[in-house]
């Protein structure tokens, strides 16, 4: 009997091929858009974590309130011991002190006169300690356009765009003019050892990267840092774990009124990222819901039309002695087969498209020249294990629902009525 039904299913394209194509199309779109949204928003979160927020960030309470202004006068002191304490308390998580600052870059000519000048946003990270994880984390080595990474003290990387604007070549000297953490003027010469391009408009417009110790000395911030960024093992974000770490760290300081008391924030507590994460979650859910709904309606209609078209067959089967329940179950089994086949095909096609866009990416650089948000200029999809199973939800659910709704017609009509319609 099963073979008989399968034969019918395969031979009747209205029952198999057309629903299969519908399911495949719907599942393909669901899987592809899930990967696309996950990739784009995931990259935005990932880039923000790497460049600005970390998975966790420790600052003083006052610094946290005014973080956008780079208020280094409110920076943390005793950073080395604080980092050791964090490392002991939360083993596995990497803690990296950073200083964000702004300054003026002055390029002298051969006479020491100003040849060109430009403002730049600075980022000081550890670039000389063993392993220097910040280089890999910020992908500085991969972003190098010209020159080399800093190999000795007082060397600086600047964005390639800024270097071109200032007419700088690797090996030339620039003077950083800034302010110390006490508000005094700070001036220090650096050698530009290389230029970088991160593919992030906000960084590429005018960024300079120097070693943390050089920055501390230049800006008179001994054993200080504006912020200490924490990164979970594997650099993958785990909202439950970061919440646990943040609350464990903050609890002892909860009642402390001191503005310079350390304060830990999670990634989503910073820069409106919580809204973005919620948006991703809701949008992904909405996407699946919309596709389930749309496909259910389409397949319901297809099922109804198929059901009407199959009145003859159903009527005959009932007359011959097949029970309504058996007909109904056979229809559901068919829809499960079609749904499963469509889900497999749609998932494969969706994943293939998503993988292609993961590798190739979509360059939006020309639209992002003035963007201040930390986000990649090449948007990529991201193929995840979830995407491999997600499509089965709308694929199976909508086909079964469509058949269910269409099949109810069999139950609601009297056998003789079905018969009458069959003869019509």
């Amino acid at each position: 009997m099963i073979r008989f039904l399968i034969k019918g299913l395969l031979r009747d394209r209205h029952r198999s091929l057309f629903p299969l194509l519908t399911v495949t199309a719907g599942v393909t779109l669901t899987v592809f858009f899930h990967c696309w949204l996950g990739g784009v928003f995931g990259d935005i979160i990932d880039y923000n974590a790497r460049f600005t927020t970390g998975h966790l960030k420790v600052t003083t309470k006052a610094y946290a309130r005014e973080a956008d202004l780079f208020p280094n006068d409110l920076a943390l002191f005793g950073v080395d011991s604080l980092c050791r304490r964090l490392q002991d308390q939360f083993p596995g998580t990497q803690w990296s002190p950073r200083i964000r600052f702004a300054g003026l870059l002055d390029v002298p000519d051969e006479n020491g006169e100003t040849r060109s000048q430009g403002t730049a946003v600075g980022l000081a990270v550890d670039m000389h300690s063993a392993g220097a994880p910040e280089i890999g984390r910020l992908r500085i080595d991969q972003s190098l356009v010209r020159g080399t990474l800093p190999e000795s003290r007082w060397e600086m990387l600047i964005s390639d765009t800024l270097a071109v604007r200032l007419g700088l070549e690797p090996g030339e000297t620039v003077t950083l003019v800034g302010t110390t953490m006490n508000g005094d003027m700070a001036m220090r010469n650096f050698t530009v050892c290389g230029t970088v391009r991160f593919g992030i408009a906000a960084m590429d417009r005018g960024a300079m990267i120097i070693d943390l110790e050089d920055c501390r000395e230049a800006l008179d911030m001994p054993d200080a840092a504006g912020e200490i960024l924490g990164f979970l093992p594997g650099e993958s974000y785990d909202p439950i774990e970061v919440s646990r770490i943040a609350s464990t760290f903050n609890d002892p300081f909860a009642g402390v009124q001191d503005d310079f008391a350390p304060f830990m924030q999670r990634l989503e507590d910073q820069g409106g990222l919580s809204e973005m994460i919620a948006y991703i979650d809701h949008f992904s859910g909405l996407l699946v819901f919309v596709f389930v709904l749309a496909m259910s309606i389409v397949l319901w209609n297809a099922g109804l039309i198929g059901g009407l078209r199959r009145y003859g067959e159903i009527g005959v089967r009932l007359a011959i002695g097949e029970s309504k329940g058996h007909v109904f179950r056979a229809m559901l089994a068919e829809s499960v087969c079609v749904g499963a086949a469509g889900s497999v095909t749609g998932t494969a096609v969706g994943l293939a498209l998503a993988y292609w866009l993961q590798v190739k990416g979509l360059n939006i650089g020309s639209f992002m020249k003035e963007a201040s948000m930390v986000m990649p200029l090449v948007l990529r999809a991201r193929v995840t294990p979830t995407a491999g199973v997600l499509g089965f939800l709308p694929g199976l659910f909508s086909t079964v629902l469509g058949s269910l709704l269409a099949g109810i017609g069999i139950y609601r009509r009297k056998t003789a009525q079905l018969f009458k319609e069959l003869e019509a």
Partner: protein
Amino acid sequence: MNASNGPIARLSGLVKRFPMGRGHFTALRGIDLQIMPGEFTGVVGPSGSGKTTLLNIIGSLDTPSEGSAVVLGRSIGELSHKQAADLRNHHIGFIFQTFNLLPVYSVYENVEFPLLLLRKPAEERRKAVLEMLEWVGLSDKIRSRPSQLSGGECQRVAIARAMVKKPGIVLADEPTANLDADNSHHILKTMVRMNENFGTTFCFATHDEKVIRYLRRKILLEDGRVTKDETVKKPRLRRAGT
């Protein structure tokens, strides 16, 4: 359920009403009737007289509004959907005006279908299907699809499908309505031979003179009532060239 001991179908005071607007329409008005095993009988009457409704009740596709219909020892009004399906599955064959073959299946598969529902073993199915196709003269068309057959051939497949499980009764609703005279006589002769060979009871609903000529019992139905019930000693079968 031994049909040979009593009537195949016994209808007593059978009434069937259908809802129509706020009231109802009475299709059958107190039918009292018995159909005995081996009969080659027909319910004859004009359109709208209730023939199909009567056949539907005998075939357990519908239930009486009043009275009783006992078919092969089972009271139709008291059967559940599943029991009614079981009764049709085992004991009743249907032949329709529009053939109603399953278009995606071959001739062989169409005839095999009732046996699949009965869970007959493959070899038994094969034997029965081939035997029945030989009876209707379609042994050379077993792989054909219904769309490749003529109307007469389709109806012969439908007869083979109705007969393959050797039912107690075959109900044929206007089986010749879509056929020309030659094909009508051909399939009627086939059914007569089957009736004689297998002892299968045939019950027709028809107003086609070609069919009526073959009947050995004519039950005239008018406006939902049996107005005449006559047995024909010697049916006026078709002569060559007529």
